[in-house]
């Protein structure tokens, strides 16, 4: 009985009062070895796959990667000049300088065992200056944000969690919306989209930077279906997240960078993601 009361007090304390936020960081430190161990078989499998691969396969892979790198470098050249031009134009318009983000590569070591909570545990923590609220991306789009930090790991809430919402804008025309998670890995919903809004299937949504938590311009999702029910006050817009929420092994923790003066220090990852956006736009 006493134990029940104590538990209920604890639940209340963590729900309403946020007394236990420090305790949870300690608990995450305790949990980290478990996640590390649970991840071990997968890591051993990867290691075995890497080690026991034949020379021909390696050579093929090497060639493919080299070709891909060539293509990416070519695109980067074009992008660098465009970025410089952009900075110049912004200076002409007296608007604020572009901010270049730095990233830290991290590895996912655990996923949520609860079907209704979407988060992953990542192997970077406060020792690597990871902080609560930090945005996380993968190679394809925005992934989530950090909600708990321990010295050597952190918990990242995915954008598909039902507690998560992210301000976005349509890449085509800048229409703003909020993409909310609904607890499904392959689906988000746009909330309160007026029936007259200019939004189409296939539109790419990028983070708008409103709210100040996520940086501007990272791809978030593509619009999958728009249903206009005249009985409802708003459109029902379902979108598919761009990030591979279920498959990524490596993610990038984004640190807000310094305002950029020249385009020399273009960061590879954000270039790649911005590039993807523009590629996607061309496809439409």
């Amino acid at each position, binding site marked *: 009985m006493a134990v029940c009361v104590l538990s209920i007090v604890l639940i209340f304390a963590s729900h309403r009062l946020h007394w236990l936020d420090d305790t949870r960081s300690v608990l995450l430190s305790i*949990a980290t070895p478990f996640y590390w161990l649970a991840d071990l078989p997968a890591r051993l499998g990867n290691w075995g796959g890497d080690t026991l691969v034949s020379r021909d396969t390696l050579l093929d892979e090497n060639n493919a990667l080299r070709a891909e790198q060539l293509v990416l470098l070519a695109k980067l050249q074009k992008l660098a000049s465009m970025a410089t031009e952009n900075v110049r134009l912004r200076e002409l318009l007296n608007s604020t300088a572009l901010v270049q983000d730095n990233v830290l590569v991290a590895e996912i070591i655990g996923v949520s065992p609860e079907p209704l909570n979407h988060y992953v545990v990542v192997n970077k923590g406060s020792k690597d200056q990871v902080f609560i609220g930090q945005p996380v991306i993968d190679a394809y789009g925005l992934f989530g944000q950090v909600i708990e930090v321990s010295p050597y790991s952190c918990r990242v809430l995915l954008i598909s969690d039902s507690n998560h919402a992210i301000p976005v804008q349509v890449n085509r025309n800048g229409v703003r919306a909020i993409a909310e998670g609904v607890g499904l890995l392959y689906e988000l919903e746009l909330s309160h989209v007026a029936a007259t809004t200019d939004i189409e299937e296939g539109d790419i949504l990028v983070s708008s930077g409103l709210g100040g938590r996520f940086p501007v311009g990272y791809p978030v999702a593509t619009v999958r279906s728009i249903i206009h029910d005249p009985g409802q006050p708003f459109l029902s817009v379902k979108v598919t997240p761009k990030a591979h929420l279920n498959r990524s092994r490596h993610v990038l923790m984004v640190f807000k960078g310094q305002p950029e003066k020249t385009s020399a220090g273009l960061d590879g990852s954000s270039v790649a993601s911005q590039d993807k956006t523009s590629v996607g736009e061309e496809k439409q």
Partner: protein
Amino acid sequence: MNSGGGGGLILVSFLLALFLHIIPLPYELRWARPEWVSMALIYWIMAMPQKVGIGVAWVLGLLLDGLEGAYLGQNALSLSVLAYITLVLHRRIRVFVVWQQAFVVFVLIGIQQLLCNWTQSLQGGMAQNLMFLVPALISALLWPAMLVMLRGLRQNFGLVKPI
């Protein structure tokens, strides 16, 4: 009775259960994760109620909360309730045949899942249908294997059931 070794075996089985609880599953099987910790807890309370009780369940629950990042106390509460009901019923559960035990396990873990689900609704993530009972069903189906394995281990380590 060999108390030191018994404690070690129980501890190891609980650690293993915690470890199995967070092992990654494919997205399609996300509801099919057996409640390893609850099953181990039910077995050990049933077999050795003088060693494993509500206190152990509560500590285990706190550990689970830490692993899941849930509200502190969510699993502690549900596992304590589970432990209490099992303690009350343990003499009866012991004399049941396996399939009857499996049914009791289904009901117990179902109650535990229900409590977890209610607490989770505070966070906004509540199951919309009865899917949250699937882990209880899977656990009940796995109960015979769990029983044989843990019983074998217990007898191997010479731990005697008290009357």
